């Protein structure tokens, strides 16, 4: 771990917020994609 000195809070918060937001976006996109794919398969099989 590099020595971040007095700015450790700002730097770690920046990385934490960014990873959190990107993780949430990627997770939500993948989850929604899987859910809709299954839903379409169900509708096509029933139709």
């Amino acid at each position: 771990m590099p020595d971040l000195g007095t700015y450790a809070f700002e730097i770690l918060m920046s990385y934490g917020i960014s990873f959190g937001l990107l993780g949430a976006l990627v997770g939500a996109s993948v989850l929604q994609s899987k859910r809709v794919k299954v839903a379409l398969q169900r509708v096509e099989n029933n139709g």
Partner: protein
Amino acid sequence: MSLWEYANPKKFMDWTAPVLPWVAGSAALCLSVGLIWGFFFTPDDFRQGSTVKIIYLHVPAALMAINAWLMMLVASLIWLVRRHHVSALAAKAAAPVGITMTLIALATGALWGSPIWGTYWEWDPRLTSFLILFLFYLGYMALWSAIEDPDTAADLTSILCLVGSIFAILSRYAAQFWSQGLHQGASLSLDKEENVSDVFWQPLLITMIGFGLLFLTLVLLRTRTEIRMRRIKALHARARRA
């Protein structure tokens, strides 16, 4: 074969299926290399100290926040002129990615500004135009969800996108239009004297490519989801008519 044929929903699903894992893998690789290199293996800046490590998130996110809107602008224009449904859905799919990039740019900018400027926020031209861009993203997404008819929603959001493009462009050039702002001019330049030092530039370039590829991955994935959702609606409508 015309380029437009790739915008056919069936063709789009066919060609994006094998491409998507490669784009996603390349994004993960570039982001890992760029961020690890930048965070662990670059020195402190002589003026900004260790806060320079925020550049690897702030600059690529800001770049993608603007470029996402410009991509939406192109897709919206294609919808308005050629009525390709996939282009309207791609613009819709890009908005949540763009707003996330804008939020990251605003949050990391505030955290970077605190030690360097002595304040988290200032009504500086670039910061303010970025905040307005964020509000445009919010409005764009709200408009899509507020209108039931997809074609009407695509028409109205396309018009909103055209108007918002002024702020997307303004966000990019605000620091050059007005000199009284706190925000510095562009960190990146083709002029070697003005560009950031190579020691920061190399990992930054890889991270910017990573953010670009991540954007592409998410837009392709979300557009595929939108196309499937549209198909489900069409099948339900057909079943109701039968």
